[in-house]
């Protein structure tokens, strides 16, 4: 067969070069991913969750650095300049004492975010240890510990919170303690159920037969295999802790003035609602946007971590 005949069968434009960026597509698709790479790959697909993550990161960075370099402080009053509208000098305006609202919002972010993350971390530790022990040891030990959980669970959270505030006074430590004392029970229950179901799986038995020590089985195999729901639960604990802090400060028994918490700011702005409604807008949007973003992150993680919910 001559060359000319081949040309007749295949027109010249039958093949074309792949554009550069498409060449790598198949390579990426074939690369094997570790568990967390896979989760991150799934998470990235969710646009809303990505935007929320970026928002929270910016918020954290601003909460850390803006107060360091700002010429205003959260408590410095400027009585000559109260209730100012937003301007170049005061981006969000000033409150009735002439304090810069922007910097107060940033300080509020420090309080809210650290309360949220700290509460989530403490809950995570207590929840895993308590629930893990109950699920793993079982028997009477489990029965007694879970009855305690039941009792804590059936008393409304706000009651503890208010009682704790009463005993230890209005400061960040007692807010944290109050939030933590009751919110770990949900996680403990979840961890226990997970551990119980994982304990029956064959690999746990196999590990035991192979002679791995009890504690290693508990933490390496069991918790590692039930990490998905635990991460999601912990993520969603952050907004609920932020909510509780804002609520307490709003009622006036949380972070005390002149400290700037979003809740206290909303409470102060409440009295100015009719004359200066804009002062209300800032703390309220800060609370709502943060809660929204954290919830979207939780949803995104939920989707990325749950193999059943992953979109194909």
């Amino acid at each position: 067969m001559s060359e000319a005949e081949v040309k007749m069968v295949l027109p010249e434009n039958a093949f074309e070069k792949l554009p550069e960026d498409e060449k790598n597509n198949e390579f990426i698709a074939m690369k094997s991913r570790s568990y967390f790479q896979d989760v991150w790959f799934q998470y990235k697909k969710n646009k809303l969750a990505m935007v929320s993550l970026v928002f929270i990161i910016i918020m954290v960075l601003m909460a850390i650095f803006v107060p360091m370099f700002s010429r205003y402080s959260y408590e410095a009053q400027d009585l000559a300049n109260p209730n100012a509208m937003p301007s170049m000098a005061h981006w969000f305006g000033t409150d009735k004492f002439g304090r810069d609202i922007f910097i107060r919002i940033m300080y509020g972010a420090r309080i809210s975010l650290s309360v949220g993350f700290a509460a989530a971390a403490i809950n995570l530790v207590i929840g895993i240890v308590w629930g893990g022990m109950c699920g793993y040891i079982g028997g009477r030990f489990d029965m007694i510990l879970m009855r305690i959980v039941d009792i804590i669970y059936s008393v409304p959270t706000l009651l503890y919170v208010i009682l704790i505030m009463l005993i230890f006074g209005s400061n960040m430590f007692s807010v944290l303690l109050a939030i933590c004392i009751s919110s770990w029970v949900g996680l403990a229950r979840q961890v226990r159920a997970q551990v119980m179901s994982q304990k029956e799986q064959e690999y746990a038995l196999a590990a035991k037969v192979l002679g791995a020590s009890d504690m290693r089985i508990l933490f390496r195999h069991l918790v590692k295999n039930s990490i998905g729901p635990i991460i999601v639960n912990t993520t969603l604990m952050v907004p609920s802790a932020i909510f509780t802090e804002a609520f307490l400060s709003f009622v006036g028994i949380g972070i005390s003035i002149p400290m700037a918490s979003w809740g206290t700011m909303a409470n102060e702005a409440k009295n100015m609602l009719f004359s200066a409604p804009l002062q209300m807008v800032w703390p309220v949007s800060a609370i709502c946007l943060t809660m929204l973003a954290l919830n979207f992150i939780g949803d995104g993680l939920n989707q990325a971590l749950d193999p059943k919910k992953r979109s194909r």
Partner: protein
Amino acid sequence: MLKYIGKRLLMGVATLFALMTITFFLMHMIPGSPFAGETQGLSAAAKQQIIEAYQLDKPIIVQYMTYLKNFFSGQLGTSTARKGVPITMIIANGLPYTAKVGLSAFITAMVLGILLGAVSAFSKKAWIQGLSAFVATIGVSVPSFLFALFLMYLLGVNLKLLPIMGLTSWKHYIMPSLALALSPVAMISRLTRSSLSEELRQDYMILALSKGTPYRKAVYKHALKNAIIPVVTYAGPLLATLLTGSFVVESLFTIPGIGSEFVASVSGRDYPLIMALTVLYGSLVILANILTDIISAMIDPRIRLK
């Protein structure tokens, strides 16, 4: 079934007992509380009255027994902040308001949530899907006290549609109920929607339709009934949360319920009142949980037969 109810009631009593014990000893831990023996902030007469009522000169175990005995015989003592007012009277005055607001919020949440969830499970209309997504988003991100403020500002002050204070006509109930119901509505509609679309595909739906039951009737009689079970499980704790979570909403809308009494008693350090209200709230929650369990056992034989 009776055995199940009995077991739940026993558990409830045990929980209540534990709550009372915890509250009692917490109160003794607070520095400056009359129960800690440091009654310096009180007048001599009030001091004497408390010492007598709670036998503070006796050992702590005796005090504890006295407290339990007093409580179960209905003697809750008198308020220390408002001298001489019996606590039973404060509760009797405030509870009806709290109950009315809490219940109307509860009914609002259940009706709106189930309706929205069911409609969005069936409908393919874009605006209904949009509405349910919007409510779900607002519900998780806006705290009830901020939503209450927003409603006050918009409906009460700007549009002047609804009264913003007190609780004298049916119009007064609208804003507090809506404010309290917002996040439960989001939660319930999400629950209803997901469990309904799950139940719609079950084998029993196929069999019901194969028997010739019309689609709408099969949905109403079988799918909806099964889909409601997780909602009921959520509803009990919700009722309790609505009753206790009304603290701020009550003070924002100046409703003279026990929620605002509780906040006032905490800032006023009115210890007998705090103790009584804590136990009251605890019992309400425990009762709500027991009722939920009994109702879901009645609907769902799987729980009963376990």
